[in-house]
């Protein structure tokens, strides 16, 4: 699955995007985030406070317990500060 990171998540992980195959049983956006957090120190740092991370599935905001379903693009980012 295509994974995107923005703002300080991107900086902490050190990349803007990558392709990840999640282990079987990874059914929600939050579970996908937990898996990513286990991939190394930089990921653990990026996701150290999971409750504040916003997630988008196929470019739509979703809650952490949203099913991944047939998602093609999964994005993680901090609370937005546009406008």
């Amino acid at each position: 699955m295509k994974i995107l990171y923005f703002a300080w998540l991107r900086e902490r992980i050190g990349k803007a995007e990558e392709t990840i195959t999640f282990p079987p049983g990874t059914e929600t956006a939050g579970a996908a985030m937990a898996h990513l957090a286990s991939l190394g120190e930089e990921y653990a740092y990026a996701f150290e406070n999971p409750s504040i991370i916003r997630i988008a599935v196929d470019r739509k905001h979703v809650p952490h317990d949203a099913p991944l379903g047939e998602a093609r693009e999964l994005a993680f980012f901090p609370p937005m500060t546009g406008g």
Partner: protein
Amino acid sequence: MVAPVVRVQAEPFDAAEESRLITAGRADIGAVVTFTGLCRSEGGSLAALELEHYPGMAEDELVRVSTEAIARWPLQAVTVIHRYGKIAPGEPIVLVVTASAHRRAAFESADFLMDYLKTRAPFWKKEHFASGAEGGWVAAKTEDDRAAERW
């Protein structure tokens, strides 16, 4: 059904021209409200803001909030433009223009659009300081969330 004009761009925009495009050649609009958000220098300490965005989703979300405004108020036109990239103090970042037969709808919908896009449109601001010191990401304000909850 009014179709919103939404643009996400690096270039500056011309608020006056956007407003003119909305009113030109018609005589049924009674009220036009424009909101322009600008980059502040914070007393000279800020060299620039860098705006990161999520291409594709940024446009989608701006269309979604604009469409919601059109559903909630009797609007005749909505334009939303949001810039990304480096923006110097004094330069505009975001523009919202709403037009309606009546002033209350124009005011409320522009206010709503700004509150909503601040908490839903995927943009992030990073500060670059004039001192050369490394800048940081701007923290989201809880007051922005509260503002969005008014609607």
